[in-house]
């Protein structure tokens, strides 16, 4: 029986004194990243890169809040992560975090980036 599941990894660490869990699932059409300090998915956003019809070649990102508050800081976090990971597919990003301070978000991004290397995108 063919059983090729979406490649999925989990990881756990402590960041800023909070236990932080991570799961990454590599679906064929989307990358699902969920990082949580509350033991649940929390807020969920979908990020995609749109085709830019102008010729200045600057990318245009579309960020849609699927669940949770529709706040600018959430959009910035999701978009920054998408750009940093240089994704070719849509990003389904779930997050439940204690702090959105710059240094805390940098730790979260480092945690994600250090683990995503295990995923064959």
């Amino acid at each position, binding site marked *: 029986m063919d*059983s*090729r*599941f*979406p490649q999925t990894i989990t*990881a756990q660490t402590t960041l800023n004194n909070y236990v932080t869990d991570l*799961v990454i699932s590599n679906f064929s*059409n989307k990358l699902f990243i969920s990082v949580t300090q509350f033991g649940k998915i929390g807020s969920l956003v*979908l990020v995609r890169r749109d085709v830019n019809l102008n010729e200045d070649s600057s990318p245009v990102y579309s960020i*849609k809040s699927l669940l949770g508050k529709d706040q600018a800081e959430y959009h910035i976090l999701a978009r920054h992560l998408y750009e940093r990971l240089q994704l070719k597919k849509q990003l389904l990003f779930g997050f439940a975090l204690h702090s959105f301070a710059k240094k805390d978000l940098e730790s979260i991004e480092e945690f994600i980036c250090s683990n995503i290397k295990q995923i064959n995108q």
Partner: protein
Amino acid sequence: MNNSELVNNSSSTIDQPTITNGIKITEFSRRIADQSILYQIIRYPDRCLFIWIGTTSCDISNLAMTMPKLSSSSSSNEFLGTTLFGTDFYEQSLSLSKKVARRLGGQKQVFVSLNLPNDSDNEMLLGEIEQGLFEHIRQNEQVY
């Protein structure tokens, strides 16, 4: 740090959960109507489930979510759920997320994504797929 050890279990009888300190992943498959149907269940520590059901194409085309019941004394039997994205099979995903939430006593937030070939929209197949999931829950009651 990667503390996961995925279990790709194609057996139709034994389902082994992956042991981690936090998020746990269970994968199993069922042969239904000549197709290999894959189930991936991500269990979060705090009453949250993410259930993906699909085929080896491994796509995620829709997502539905049902909330836990706010209070056990609530008189309503209706569960609050919604489709988060997608067009194909989104109604079936929403319906299944409510059924799983009800099966688990309304204690969990349940995400469901059902991803099947477009020509498989028949009730009998969907019924067998649901049956495969509920059978797994019944056999692994202690982890849910």
